[in-house]
């Protein structure tokens, strides 16, 4: 299985930077053959389109992972398979324009990549609920506790044939 784990998110935003934290941790692990891991934030969704188009043979599976703001007040995470259903064109263009001006958003990645036919069929999104969205190099303590579990999930989604 040729798969890519790609994180999305600004650095130094405590739990909102959970995506890059996951990727940083996975980069120190030995992953299954054919599984690549990288931070897709730099270059943004357009950079991701280019990268995915250039990869030969193409990835068969893609796992996007990133922090999202939530109001529950609890650190947590959820994952789901990307349906491939695009929002209305106005919203897609808004996300492209945003990408071009340097703004990062987890869902903009699958949306923009889907729009330009750069996605494989099998795409997963892992959303990590940020408890603390303020400035900080490290995740919050509850998030720190949760990260190994999230890393294991992300690995499973990327590595297992029948994820």
């Amino acid at each position, binding site marked *: 299985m040729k798969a890519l784990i790609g994180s999305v998110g600004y650095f130094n935003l405590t739990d909102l930077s959970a995506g890059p934290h996951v990727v940083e941790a996975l980069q120190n692990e030995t992953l299954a053959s054919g599984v690549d891991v990288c931070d897709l934030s730099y270059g943004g969704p357009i950079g991701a389109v280019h990268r995915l188009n250039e990869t030969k043979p193409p990835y068969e599976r893609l796992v996007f992972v990133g922090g999202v703001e939530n109001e529950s007040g609890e650190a947590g995470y959820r994952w789901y398979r990307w349906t491939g259903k695009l929002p209305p064109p106005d919203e897609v263009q*808004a996300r492209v324009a945003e990408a071009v*001006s340097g703004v990062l958003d987890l869902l903009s990645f699958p949306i923009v990549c889907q729009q330009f036919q750069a996605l494989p069929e099998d795409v997963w999104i892992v959303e990590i609920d940020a408890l603390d969205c*303020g400035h900080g190099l490290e995740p919050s303590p509850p998030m720190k506790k949760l990260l190994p579990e999230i890393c294991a999930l992300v690995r499973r989604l990327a590595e297992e044939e029948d994820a």
Partner: protein
Amino acid sequence: MCFKNLPIDIDASGRMTLREEATRAFAVSQSPANAGPKPLSEASIKELLARNGYIKNVDFDPVTRVAGALAFHAVVDLKERKVLDTSSMATLFRGYEVIMNGRDPRDAVFITSRACGVCGGVHSIAAVKAIEMALGLVPPPLGIVVRNLMLAMEFNYDHPLHLFLLAGPDYSQLVVESSNPSVWAKAKTYEARGRDMHGYRTLAEIMTDLNPLSGKLYVEALGMTRVAREAYVVLGGKYPHPETIVPGGVSTTVSLQTFNEYYVRLQQLFDYSKKVVAIWDDLTEFFYACDPLYKKCGQRPGNQAELGLWDDPEAYDASFANCDNWGEKRWSTPGVFINGELVTTKLTAINAGLEEFVEHSYYEGWDGKRFAKDPLGNPLSPYHPWNKETKPKPVGQNWKEKYSWACSPRWDRQTVEAGAYTRLWATAAARKMPKNDFCEATGKSLRFQLPKVQLPEMEMEWKIPEVWNTFERNRARACAILFNNAVAMNNWLQGLNYLKQGKTEVSTPFEIPKRGTRIGVGYSGAGRGWLSHHVELDGGVVANYQIVTPSTINASPRDVWGNPGAYEQAVLSTPILEEFDRPEDFKAVDVLRTLRSFDPCMPCTTHVYAGTRVISREINTCACGVDD
């Protein structure tokens, strides 16, 4: 006289002296002459809002519609079709200057590069130049050539993205047909002058292919950015954030093969640039023909500043002492324009005139006593980046007081703007660019000789426009692709010559001195224009680091004297030409075109804090309002 507001005299040798004692000289009590539109007073706006139902607060938050780091507030009189007041707000603080303190200067190359995910290599180059100046480190000629080639391709990646994915949709059939039906009606029969170049018979055909997501021009631009990116990677190994840009040159291996791989892509971009210029020429002239008032959209005085770019490998010695000399030998000439007049091309003067103010930004002031003079003995303001300290202090947003994470850079205490177009303007007007086969500065224009690829060999010309407005910014940005390619071609040939001569070194070894204080500045440029990194090293580590980006210059809030920033001025002068019957149908397309004409790049501007804010809105465009 170069300075009108700062009391600095310059003698024939370029030496600057203060006309009065420093504390008085740099006092901010006196308001500078600052041409440009001014907003109404707060009291007048309140009164108008209270008694006139056609005057509305309009918030664009974010300007990019989904999330984003730029918000824009305007008060618009929909009956008179005028903008009365504007405020530009950067909503993120990223703190790269703070992160740099106490670090090994070599880290700056990699860390500051991350200030932006759009301009993926320019901060690295500005950082190495600052370090090279501080250390007295001169790269070998081929190293400089390779950096020049990389920069040209970075801009070739950047400009098409802006022109067709960000700005282009504002001129597309989908937008124009709904915002200005009469303009769309004319476009259906208006013949395109550049048909031979781009193949479109009418403006309506161009506009249809500018449609977002599906338009041919839109999709083609996405493809061409990939070509530029590939060319960059051939030399730089990686984009964004190349790890091969190092103080003293580059760490990449260059050969005839890499040069050839670069050239194949450069050829494609040459043809593409001919087409892009013809398209934006046609669009600009068409809108002017539809209504001359379009010339007033986004109009600002001709106040612009540029540091120049693309060093001459035989002249660049990284020293401050010689920066006026090597600066003027760059492929694009440094320059400041005030009211359309080129007032200086000297980097020392451009540097001395730069100040940053934070009266309307979420920062505290500083004492400004680090350096009274630059390395040549020229006076420095306490507000100069070498004297500035970044002290974030978030407070509640208030349009009269503090409302932005961007600070207010000013030159000679005047609002200037920066852009790829300033690069063209300064080079054209100064007539100092090196003699070459592909581009000539005439004083009033830049004339390009473009080689045959698929399209025939041809001459194209960018003329300094009579007015600086929304349309001319985009037209000039299209021509900037021609300029990038001309510069790339010259550097490619020069690089081949060095290879032929056996001058294959691309970097100079160095060590970081562990003692003493040293300062440096990276005079550089991003796709959007001016980019400077000012560094102070003390005991081998960074004691202070200050970045001024083009979008900080353009998106700046009001300054200490209440004078608006460039976005704010440009929108103030924008007439509302959109066609609508009811206020609720107002889409603000003219305002959005103006904002986007600057090619806003907000991550750069707001060098991480997700502040809370409450913005009330009476009319919202398709932008999402934020009430968090």
